[in-house]
């Protein structure tokens, strides 16, 4: 297991390195020269003088490999990526890391809460459907899953807002759900949950639908195997058969899918943050694009990718725990 872990971490580092190269290429390379790059960073309104200053500050005139090195390690006065520096936001001069530091907890609360919810809902409904195929319960879950699976996240979010916030509050006079905002867990745990319920549901339901389908089909595959039939013949209770024997095998494709979905999760978070006006990473990213604020976007891309890579490593470890064959590879 140890060797597996080491190998996996090394792979992750390699991928992260490639990601930094990709990000660097995207932002700092332009066929028409350093002026265009500077313009991207400075924004549409930047004057020529400001552009020249940017070129000077960021060393955009230097050969590419040097620029990459500065980006990665840093130059005097400008800590690079590995030292925790991501440049400054070009409008308020605020260090990008600072912005990210404030925005990240919001996104992570959203993401982690939602994923727990969707895994729970998806697995539960999928397993229940698989255990009684073609029953009313099965048809019900499958139809609902299909319905929600076809709905974009933001549509769901807005509809939820419309019904639960607006209609409830104004027509039913039940101010149960807030419209927007975020309250930190450290301030007030109950309010934290209170404000996150609708966003969590928005983000979770669509994915839960996908996981219902996936776990239903995976579970059905496993329950059809001979060894399950043997377990039943041995006299084990149905519950034990399903949960202890069936689930373990059925979980593997789900874990794989979850790993892939982690990257999508951030995207879903972006949309949800927009709908509910929560100032997480996604929201900041969209702001940044409206302001043409490249350093912020660059920072978010790198941080988000790092989070995905780390989460993927965790997922792979879980996978290895579930399926010992993987460790031997």
């Amino acid at each position, binding site marked *: 297991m140890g*060797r*597996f872990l*080491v*190998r996996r971490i*090394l792979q992750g580092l390699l991928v992260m390195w490639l990601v930094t190269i990709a990000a660097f290429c995207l932002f700092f390379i332009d066929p028409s020269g350093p002026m265009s790059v500077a313009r991207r960073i400075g924004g549409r309104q930047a004057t020529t003088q400001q552009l020249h200053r940017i070129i000077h500050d960021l060393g955009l005139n230097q050969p590419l490999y040097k620029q990459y090195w500065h980006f990665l390690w840093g130059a005097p006065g400008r800590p690079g990526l590995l030292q925790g520096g991501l440049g400054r936001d070009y409008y308020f001069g605020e260090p990008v890391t600072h912005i990210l530091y404030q925005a990240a907890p919001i996104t992570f609360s959203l993401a982690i809460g939602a994923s727990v919810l969707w895994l729970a809902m998806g697995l539960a409904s999928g397993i229940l459907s698989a255990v009684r195929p073609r029953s009313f319960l099965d048809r019900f879950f499958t139809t609902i899953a299909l319905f929600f699976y076809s709905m974009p996240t933001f549509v769901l979010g807005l509809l939820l807002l419309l019904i639960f916030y607006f209609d409830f509050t104004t027509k039913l006079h039940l101010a149960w759900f807030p419209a927007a905002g975020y309250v930190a867990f450290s301030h007030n745990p109950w309010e934290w949950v209170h404000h996150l319920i609708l966003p969590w549901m928005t983000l979770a339901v669509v994915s839960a639908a996908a996981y219902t389908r996936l776990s239903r089909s995976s579970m059905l595959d496993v329950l059809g195997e001979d060894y399950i039939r043997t377990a039943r013949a041995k006299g084990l209770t149905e519950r034990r058969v399903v949960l202890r024997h069936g689930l373990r095998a059925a979980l593997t494709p789900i874990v794989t899918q979850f790993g892939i979905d982690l990257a999508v999760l951030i995207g879903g978070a972006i949309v949800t943050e927009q709908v509910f006006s929560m100032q997480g990473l996604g929201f900041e990213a969209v702001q940044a694009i409206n302001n043409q604020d490249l350093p912020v976007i660059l920072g978010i891309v790198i941080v988000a990718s790092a989070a995905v890579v780390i989460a993927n490593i965790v997922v792979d470890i879980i996978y290895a725990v579930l399926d010992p064959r993987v460790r031997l590879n």
Partner: protein
Amino acid sequence: MTTGTSGDVLLRATDVVKHFPVRSGSIFRRAVGAVHAVDGVSLEVRQGETLGLVGETGCGKSTLARCITRLYDLTSGTVEFDGADISKLGASAMRPYRREMQMIFQDPYGSLNPRRRVGSIIGDPFAIHGIASGQDRRRRVQEAMELVGLNPEHYNRFPAEFSGGQRQRIGIARALALRPKLVICDEPVSALDVSIQAQVINLLSDLQKELNLTYIFIAHDLSVVRHVSDRVAVMYLGKVAEIGPSEDIYQKGRHPYTQALLSAVPVPDPRKMEGRARIVLAGDVPSPLNPPTGCRFHPRCPKARDTCVSEDPPLIPRLGDPPIHAAACHFPVEVGEDISLSTPQISESERVIEGGLIGNA
């Protein structure tokens, strides 16, 4: 290409060795061992003859076949086809030789692409070598189908719509489409019902006469091999144990392993069966990862002596046999000798005990 006269050496394999490395390690995979699939095999095949190649599963016969046809690269040794050294040729250099040297595979269900129509499958050789196209190709494919006894109307069918025997015929049609000189049949009938086996074998015989083919016939069923082969080579654990004319092997097998194989062939007459001594070999074939020292057969051989543990016997004629009949054994079997009565004279640690493996794998 030369048109050799009957009797010329068509294929010569010299000291062919094929090892498959076993790798370990996570990032940088080092070779920690090797499977000695083929460990020094030399043989010749003459134009027009049929060389039978027998042995247990895992003895390396299929690997040898693939080395000869260069589906694998050789670890060392040479293969000469029609006078030319094809041991190290790259894919494009090999291509012209592939017209002359074809293979028929064992699994009628796996050797045909289930998603392609039969006409397309048999037409492949024509397409690959740019020989015929369009109507001309179709006509020739249908000729090939008739040659092997298939209905040319079934040109557009999928393999799934044919029986096992018919599929094997498709494979034969594909192999013979370009009229090769040498055909290697890798257990062509092992996966078929016995009644169908007879048909296919007869078909192969007829085709050999009709098209002047040379066969290497690989099988593990001795009775089948005896029927079709002019000469037979017996393989064990990557090396040739004995080689000679078919009847000599069956009547005067010199190697104890050959005798053991022969004694395992059932004979239809119950009375004859009772009278025969069964030579039962202990244990399984050792792992090719770590072959025994000296003569590879010594752990299971009823006649093993100390020389057998230390020296690997060369493949030469024994006991006054003609040059064409060679065996790799220090203490070959005399005619009439019953080796089920022999006892090995080597220490216990070198032997297989009652069905287990010794010190290998």
